[in-house]
């Protein structure tokens, strides 16, 4: 598989993510995107470096295995199916996502790439994915969908990191993955507490503190 194809798939996943109302489907899409993240470095032919191969395998294991496990557990406890009444509607979200993707292409064009970098698609895809994650975080009410947004945001950063992966030391790579893993874990615990306290994971309830 060519890396360009996988990157295009990642960007298509972004659009599907902002248009879906079912929490379950959003989680599946985020997991699918996570597995794509693990496959892209392999498709780029970086598998010849042992540490990158290892990173890709760990990424697949964490994003495709452990995180869905955490989500399934959270879903069982909170019994939520649909994102009801998001702050920004699905059609508007889709249009914003398209605008963000366009903007990413323009922005990426302004940043010079080192000669011989392939695939050149990586920077706009990273920025667009980052933007999608941000959009999900601010426009959705359910805590679970917000965590999905955080995952997508991290995927965007990971995509950019692939430009540098041959030079980055293992320490930093594993640090990033570990933080993602612990971050989702801690958020999972907090979601649980939100559920216990409010009997709902609608973060619209979390609006009592203000000036």
């Amino acid at each position, binding site marked *: 598989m060519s890396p360009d194809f996988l990157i295009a798939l990642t960007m298509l996943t972004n659009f599907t993510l902002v248009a879906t109302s079912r929490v379950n489907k959003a989680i599946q899409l985020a997991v699918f995107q996570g597995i794509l993240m693990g496959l892209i470095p392999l498709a780029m032919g970086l598998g010849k470096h042992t540490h990158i191969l290892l990173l890709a395998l760990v990424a697949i294991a964490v994003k495709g295995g452990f995180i869905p496990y955490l989500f399934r557990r959270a879903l069982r406890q909170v019994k939520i199916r649909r994102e009801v009444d998001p702050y920004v509607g699905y059609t508007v979200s889709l249009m914003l996502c398209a605008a963000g993707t366009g903007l990413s292409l323009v922005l990426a064009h302004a940043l010079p790439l080192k000669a011989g970098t392939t695939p050149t698609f990586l920077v706009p895809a990273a920025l667009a994915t980052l933007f999608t994650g*941000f959009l999900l975080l601010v426009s959705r009410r359910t805590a679970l969908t917000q965590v999905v947004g955080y995952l997508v945001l991290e995927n965007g950063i990971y995509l950019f990191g692939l430009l540098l992966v041959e030079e980055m030391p293992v320490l930093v790579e594993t640090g990033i993955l570990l933080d993602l893993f612990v971050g989702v874990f801690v958020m999972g615990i907090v979601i649980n507490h939100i559920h216990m306290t409010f009997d709902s994971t609608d973060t619209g309830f979390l609006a009592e*503190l203000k*000036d």
Partner: protein
Amino acid sequence: MALLLILLPLLAAALAVFIKVPVIRVRVLPVTALVHLGLLLVVLRGWRELPLNAWLGLDALGGWVLLVISVLFTICALYAPSYLALRPDRDHRVFTVCLLAFLGLASLLCLARHPGVAWVALETMTLTTAPLIYFNHNRHSVEATWKYLVLGSVGIALALLGTLFVAYAAHMGNLEEPLHYTRLMAEGERLSRPWLRAGFVLTLVGYGTKMGLAPLHSWKPDAYGETPGIVGALLAGGVTSCAFLALLRIYGVVAAAGEGAFARELFLGFGILSMAWALVFMVGQLDFKRLLAYSSVEHMGILVFGIGIGGLAARFALFHLAANALVKSVLFLSAGNIHRSYASKQLPQVTGAIRRTPVSAGLFFLGFLAITGLPPFAPFISEFNIASAALTLGHPLAGTLFLLLLGGIFLTMSDTVMQVVFGVPSPQRVRTPYKDTFATTAPLVVAMVLALGLGLHLPAPLRAMLEAASQTIEGGPPATTVKAVEVPRGLALTEVRP
């Protein structure tokens, strides 16, 4: 030796997990804090001899910030046992472990010589401080924790992207790993400009969120308002200082590459905006803990404003980091005592606290005078010098605005503080068993005396360290190449002696 600074608190945290008796577990805090501070004082002697390619080590800048955090942590740790004794209803195993882990991670951040390591330390710190905010386990603390986690995580994610951008800027200039700060600064002219600028903007927004610069501060009033005062003190003086350090390191690289002017303009903008925003939200603020949160937004603004002016003001911004941390610990801890005494942190209920808790309320009032810049306390020295540097170094408009905002903040803050401390006791007040004791007030007195002492005299070794640290910030020669720092008389730190 320096590694012990990181390992000791982390080991103590691991130990605290297994201690069953709460009274003994809580004692781990002050013991660890004092040993850490002692160890740091020994390690600090060697800040001039840091090897260029070390992954971990203390230079002047990191050493200064860690010294501030270690002193602050010691004050809080000495206060912790008596505070936690007031809250027998809450299990504080997680609380103690997270506090200790925070100290270990702060040490890691200050020792980190590589932007990636610094980032990992700050991200992990975000996660370990979240349970601290959730200490009270109620609706409000859940809300505050969720906002802190989500906003903090987004901020830290943007900072990571910014760090990767800076790494790519180096990659474009054919610089490969390991990209230590010293190496990035020494090879500054080889970095690609567009990537460096974009990277700086992203790290400023990212670490700025963790610092709580307006308009990225919205987690701050909620988090500070809902946590115990002790956590508020550590967040306002510790976590924010850590984020500031991470930002300063990147700024050092940007300045060494000759893009400092661009960065300083952004700093000035964020500084003024934060102070103005804080002023607006302080007007009529009835909750005195939220008032302190906005004061923290203001002081983060002062820090970046000082860096934005540069030169002498940058050095006083670093000095202000210490002044702010010390006085904020007095304010948050005494506010916590008053909160315990009245079981409320709102104005109509809490008035005339000087009668019920004379020591805490007196310290709260003194802290207020100090933080708003009254001589002879330490914040006066830094605020005065930053303002005068702004006026003399070609920023007359910014300097005037700075002074006006300081004056406005003094007036608005005094409105609430005067009522809390000296107001007529409210008929709605509740009786609680809390009384000021030696254990709940002595650490605050120590902090207040330190803030006063720092305002009167800065010891020569600290002055040399500050001098070298401010050179590192502005992209000057790395601390390793500075042999003995002679402070010119005209620029000596205690220019304003009362």
